[in-house]
């Protein structure tokens, strides 16, 4: 049976930590003399009180966590933090958003989707704009990983939580012997990348505020921007900086860790997944460039090339920043870029999607079938990075992809029932489930114009995508709740 009390105790602690993350937004509000100071203060109070209560009531529930509890807690935490994260949007006098809109925005931030329902960002209070970006920052590496890293109290069963949250593929790659250490290491790498990105943006000509906001949206492969027009900067240098950091965010963080710790930069080039990921980006960039140069009149070739590169990488890494109206690109290109968003980034990264490694394993299995036909006596193993992939893993990959597409179809039909046309439903769902953000058609610019039930569906899709389906779906199975 699920140990509800323990779960609520941990949830309480996490809510207390989460309430503290409102402080930077308060400081910004104070600095800019914005009325949002009370918004954040009251939101923080509510969250803090709720957390304290949950923790206090269950303070004696100290049982050890089981793997099963891990799944339950993960889903509980992401949902509840998503709800509490929406409070400032509701409380804000400027926005006074509906609960559905506020939750959509909050979950979109935490899951690093970057789809927004708000219009008029240019005139919004700075503190609110910063708060949205900070949601990306927190969600990018994972709330739980953060909690495991900073809350020694979670030590009991931290591994179960960590395993359930970190991308299913890198579960077993513990970088350090202790899970707390691993979580800390990952967060250090993550913060390091964010700082590097802030400095690069700042040197590239952004204001410090913009640099921080965009860096939070870039490394987490989120996609929120403090402007209505997304990545509004025209400088080629900033486009290139963003491209590099989006790519870094979408690579396996254990590779970054090895590079930081041991100076092993060679591990990037030896990793099959990274190579395949980069190859996908390059190929789609080249195809897009050829088609665009062929079908439209290009005024400034260099600028256009950088713009196309930025756009392809932004979507391929499931970031979702836009510098050009990619939904108006000629012929098949809008769909092509959405397909690479479906493939997504590398395992163990901040990016979403099916993940390159799963696609790679599926293709390799196809290739193996062909080799088996040519060599009927042959004995072929599935290998990745020259190591054998256990049968268990390839089964899991097939299971995942099967479930992914089934869920995708069901949610797409739901969206169509809730009034979206096919293109909007398909692309909006890609945008949500891969944590990309923008779609095509009605949801190309923002998600403000769709029905409330569609928004709820997409909110669910974002959570499903961020938690890689199984953690949530497993809660729906009767077997999970049985004793």
């Amino acid at each position: 049976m699920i140990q509800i009390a323990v779960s609520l105790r941990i949830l309480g602690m996490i809510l207390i930590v989460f309430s503290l993350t409102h402080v930077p937004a308060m400081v910004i509000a104070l600095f800019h003399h914005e009325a949002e100071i009370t918004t954040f203060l009251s939101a923080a109070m509510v969250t803090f009180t709720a957390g304290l209560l949950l923790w206090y009531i269950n303070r004696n529930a100290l049982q050890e966590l089981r793997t099963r509890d891990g799944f339950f807690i993960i889903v509980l935490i992401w949902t509840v933090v998503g709800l509490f994260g929406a409070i400032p949007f509701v409380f804000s006098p400027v926005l006074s958003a509906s609960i559905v809109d506020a939750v959509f925005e909050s979950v979109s931030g935490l899951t690093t989707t970057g789809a927004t329902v708000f219009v008029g960002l240019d005139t919004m209070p700075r503190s609110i704009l910063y708060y949205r970006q900070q949601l990306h920052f927190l969600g990018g590496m994972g709330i739980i990983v953060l909690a495991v890293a900073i809350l020694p109290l979670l030590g009991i069963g931290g591994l179960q939580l960590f395993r359930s949250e970190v991308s299913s593929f890198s579960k077993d790659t513990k970088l350090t012997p202790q899970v707390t250490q691993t979580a800390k290491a990952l967060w250090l790498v993550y913060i390091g990348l964010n700082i590097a990105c802030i400095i690069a943006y700042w040197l590239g000509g952004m204001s410090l505020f913009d640099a921080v906001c965009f860096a939070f949206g870039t490394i987490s492969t989120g996609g929120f921007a403090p402007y209505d027009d997304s990545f509004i900067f025209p400088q080629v240098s900033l486009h290139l900086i963003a491209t590099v950091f989006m790519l870094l965010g979408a690579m396996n963080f254990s590779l970054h860790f090895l590079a930081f710790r041991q100076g092993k930069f060679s591990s990037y080039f030896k990793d099959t997944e990274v190579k395949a990921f980069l190859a996908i980006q390059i190929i789609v960039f080249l195809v897009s460039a050829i088609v665009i140069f062929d079908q439209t009149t290009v005024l400034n070739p260099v600028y256009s090339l950088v713009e196309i590169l930025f756009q392809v990488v932004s979507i391929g890494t499931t970031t979702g920043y836009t510098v050009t109206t990619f939904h108006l690109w000629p012929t098949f290109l809008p769909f092509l870029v959405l397909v690479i968003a479906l493939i997504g980034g590398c395992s163990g990264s901040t990016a979403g999607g099916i993940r390159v490694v799963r696609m790679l394993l599926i293709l390799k299995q196809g290739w193996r079938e062909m080799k088996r036909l040519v060599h009927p006596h042959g004995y072929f193993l599935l290998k990745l990075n020259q190591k054998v992939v256990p049968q268990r893993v390839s089964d899991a990959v097939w299971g995942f992809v099967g479930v992914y597409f089934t869920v995708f179809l069901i949610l797409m039909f739901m969206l169509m029932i809730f009034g979206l046309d096919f293109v909007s439903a398909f692309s909006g769902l890609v945008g949500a489930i891969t944590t990309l953000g923008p779609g095509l058609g009605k949801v190309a610019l923002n998600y403000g114009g769709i029905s409330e039930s569609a928004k709820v569906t997409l909110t669910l899709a974002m959570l499903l995508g961020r938690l890689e389906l199984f953690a949530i779906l497993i809660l729906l199975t009767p077997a999970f709740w049985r004793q």
Partner: protein
Amino acid sequence: MKIIILGAGRVGRTLAEQLLLEHNDVTLVDSSPHPLTYLSEKFDLCTVVGNAAFPEVLEKAGAHDADMIIAVTASDEVNMLACEIAHHLFKTPSKIARIRNNEYIRYPQLFNAKAIAVDILINPEDLVINYVSRLVEYPNALQVLDFAHGKIELVMVKALKDAPLIGQPLRNVLVHLPSVEAKIVAISRQGKTIIPEPDTIIEVDDDVFFIAGKNNVREVISELRGISKPPRNIMIAGGGNIGLGLARALENDYHVKVITRDKPRARRLAEKLQKAIVLHGNAVDETLLFDENINDVDVFCALTDDDEINIMSATLAKRMGVRKVMALINRQAYITLIQNSTVDIVISSHLATMNNVLSHLRRGDVVQAHSLGSGNAEALEAIAHGNPENSKIIGKTVEQIPLPQGASIAAIVRAGIVMIAQAQTMIMPEDHVILFVPDKRDIPQIERLFQVGLTFF
């Protein structure tokens, strides 16, 4: 020399025989009395029965005044421990051990006087792998031996009809190959070794031994065999350590297929090999070979642990159109039986081990020695130490050096540069001299030539 051989297995026995021929005092140690009684009746040697790693047994075998211990028992651990004990208790100057298991060989730093006191490691599997991969490189060669770290190769090929050099006297070789540094050192015709003179004529089916710089070997082979395309497809029967090692050594340069009968072994091979294709099946299964395009295979290596299967699968492969087939055969009776049959090359890990041990037994400044073909001939690499005063060879030209009948200086490597020896070439200090000796019995004479006179010290 007083030599103790531990282990009277096949290698130990043949080694003992060979060493007795060269007038050494040999003591053979084995845990079982059976092979020893027979040997001590047949040969003039001492035998000791007991665990080779026990100090008492080693002492009985005369470890106190032995010059060398050769540990070739069936167990790696006993071999290592015996060397270790001989080193610490009896201060035996040189210790050779056969070690088969890669788990030990992977850490060469283990083997020194402070850790495991083994001076020379012999790994039969590595020897066979090296030997075979050389032969794969030159599929027309019957034997390829490296000297001077692979800069010079001594190659044996069978001369083919219609090849450019057939029917030509040797003095024309230089005319045929103007830019090539090569020298024919011997010709074996119907089992007889001919020491080449300038007017010796190369005939069809002669086994020609020549020495050449690595870059020229291919060219010389094509002069003796006609031009043939370089090999691409290699098939290995047998997924044991030798098959696996060979496949790993070759898989990046050739299309390699490995056949193994054992399913778990097939899995292990597939894990370890990145490019080579692993086939699960029987090496003597005609359909399997046919399905895998056996007729396009350039080299077929039968390397299972079963002599009969190796012979049968190599024969089958040859009949199905493989250019060159090799078989690993360990039973002496089969080796003689199979020679000069459909199997092009017979490989014996025992012979390889024995030859390797023998090469380490050479005295003076001989750094390498290889037996050639099946005969008595040997090729040596020796370093000329000293100066014109204390050395019998330094400062002399090649024709001035008094070599035994038929022996010749084939090449000289000076500061990394390969020179084919001419009559007027002068030997300088620190030259690596590569010699060809048609009769093993003359070797002590050559060893003495390379020994530095007393004034050196």
